[in-house]
């Protein structure tokens, strides 16, 4: 039905595996994003590509309970990315992905804070998976 394995010899995945070096992270979100991306595309040994990215997150509250405040928070994240060929500096592909995760604040403030950090970590993994899939898709074009 026209599908070929991404990691078959000469496949789109094989061309990227261990070849993509994401830029050094400057904050905690970037750290989690790079870690998740390397789980997908492998640690860069002698990378052919550089991946520049910018991570922007925001929060939106909902389900306000009187006297308690907003009890369900969405963490919305957008990653703009650009893959360039290291040798020539040409842009191979670029774009942006957007997604969100949720956490609750009904329990103690300590639990809410750790739930928020966990939500940000999960968001970075979701966005990293989306970017990896988009890079493989672009490679397959």
């Amino acid at each position: 039905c026209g599908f070929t394995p991404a990691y078959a010899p000469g496949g789109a995945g094989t061309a990227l595996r261990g070849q993509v070096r994401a830029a050094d992270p400057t904050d905690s979100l970037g750290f989690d994003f790079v870690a998740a991306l390397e789980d997908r595309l492998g640690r860069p040994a002698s990378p052919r590509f550089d991946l520049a990215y910018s991570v922007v997150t925001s929060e939106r509250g909902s389900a306000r309970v009187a006297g308690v405040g907003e009890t369900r928070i969405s963490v919305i994240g957008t990653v703009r990315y650009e893959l360039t060929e290291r040798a020539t500096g040409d842009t191979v592909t670029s774009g942006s992905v957007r997604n969100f995760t949720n956490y609750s604040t009904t329990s103690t403030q300590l639990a809410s804070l750790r739930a928020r950090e966990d939500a940000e970590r999960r968001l970075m993994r979701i966005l990293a998976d989306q970017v990896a899939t988009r890079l493989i898709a672009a490679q397959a074009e």
Partner: protein
Amino acid sequence: QVDGPEQGFATLVADRLYLDGPHRLIAEGNVEALSGQTRMRATRIIYDRQSGALQIEGPLTLREGDRVLVLADAAEMHDGFRRGLIRSARVILDQQLQIAAHQVERVDDRFTQMNSVIASACEICEETQTPLWEVRASRVVHDQQEQQIYFENAQFRLFGLPVAYLPRLRVPDPGLDRATGWLSPRFSLDTGHGVGLRAPYFIAISHDKDLTLTPFLASKGSRALELRYRQAFATGMLELGGLVARDSIRPGSTRAMGYTRGEFVLGRGYELSFNLIKVSDRQLLEDYDRSEAQLASDITLERVRRDERIRLQALQFRSLRLVDNNRELPNQIGQAVYERRFDMPGLGGVAGLRFEVHSHSRRRPLAADVKSVARFSADLDWRRDAILPAGVVGTLGVNLGVDHFAISPGSTAFAKSTTRVVPTAMAELRWPLVRATSGGAVHVVEPVAQVIWGRDRVDALPNDISSMPELDEGNLFSHSRFAARDQREMGLRANLGLSWTRHDPQGWSGTLTLGRIWRKTDLGQFSPQSALAGRRSDWLLVSSLDTDQGLTLSNRALFNSDFRLTRNALELDWSTPDYSISTTYMHIRPDLAENRPAKAAEWSLDGSRALDEYWTASVNWRYDIARNRAARVGAGLTFENECLRMQMEVERRFASAITAGDTTSFGLSIDVLGVGGNPSRARRGCSGG
């Protein structure tokens, strides 16, 4: 920007130049004179050789750098444009503020004096058109060095009607963005304060320090003073602030709040940030709309490098919730985390080390709770993947978690000290398949099967932190779905997932993900209402769509085997040049373990539409589906042109269990643009003018 000769000399360019008598040199036709940064264009200039004076016949334009432009009928200049008289001139500062004056006198390099003046930043196309706002004054002095404009006998007119008369008025020049003075006032109307006025006064102490004092007066007797001091350092920024108030909401008592905030870059990549806040009473922040329902003071030292993250943090919480009693809550927290990722020598693959020291305590805990908990956690994990035949990606992983708890006082439920060792092993198979269609769209299908083995024994330990676990595609395949190491997920379980992605850079892109967890035995680690509970978790179904016309739609649903939703979250954002809509729908079942006694379901919408070039209307509401009634409705109208910005908002919050009646609040802010600090952007220019 051609600079003319230096002081005392001017370059003259014209169609014709001739001598009329021994000392009068006359230049005619497209005459242009350049001296220093000043460029003059006129139809005729008469130069008297003895006095060096220039008689200029207009219409003339005088341009000084790119900040000052003068259009006038005639002028007489001495000393190379530094001194002179210009008649019936229009002075335009920074392409924003226009001053029409009967006569403009250049006193010297610094001062320009104008009399019988009309000043406005509004574009005046025809002479008859009255600008939205204007200042009429008998005399105006523009100090170019200090970038200040002084008006004498100034009359402020709004829509042509005199609104205020000020014997003396000082306004910063548009080019100046930091000057001591009054900022735009804010009017507000709400049930708590009645009609209120905030008039911030900004004091630029020096280039790196400033202080803003904002008095707040309201018709129901509220008197408040807000204070914000900021200082910039080479390595960071410090902010101190506070609020002191006496009002009718809490009559007879002085209410106050103080905070400090700072960020500093220390050596070797470390960043120190702190955020301390103290409040006199719970309602203060809400009453003065500084919307922080929870107070969190923290001091954090952090360093992030490519493969290493270090964080030391001390936290002090104070809940403002009516239901909370702070003495019973774990509000004092300390934490130190060291994380490192590295390539595993010998075995290959990626290894991770993580050490954490955590402690939290309660001042007077309830019987069931523990007074203080200290925990040391160490994690070693290792994973290695390989490409198997037919492009299958096989991954093996091991995780060893060691946690030592010191609980005091010990109790029947929890031993004084407990050490827990949790080894887990993981095997995963991924098989990403790709299909590129002729139309340019690419499909990626990726089935994932993962098995994690962990032992079954669950130690009895206090669960103060990881009490609200979530399930989404971000942790479907992770070792433990708890937010902190005080809990670890146990037992043998299989995580299965299938995701399909369509990506078309020109067209639309979408993803669909399905996932579920199967457990060998239900160890009761999750509350029955949680999506993660039971031998089989809820189904996870995630769909997202984004088009290149600015639409992004994503929905995440968790439902059990008979298709009843436990949790759902939908976000839709659609923005085009002239309107933007963002709407969300959320639904979450009650879960006492998460301290959520009632179901919550809400639909919210925020929309804004540009009615025309100047007017933008916005509307927002929140509909509480669980109680089947509107929770909040708001509307806003904004007018902005090159010289005036007006924002009006009205919001109505409907009664809920605790707050008695409905509350309505109205906000109006008027910003005069084109003067210092409020640059105007939308400069349209006269059409066909």
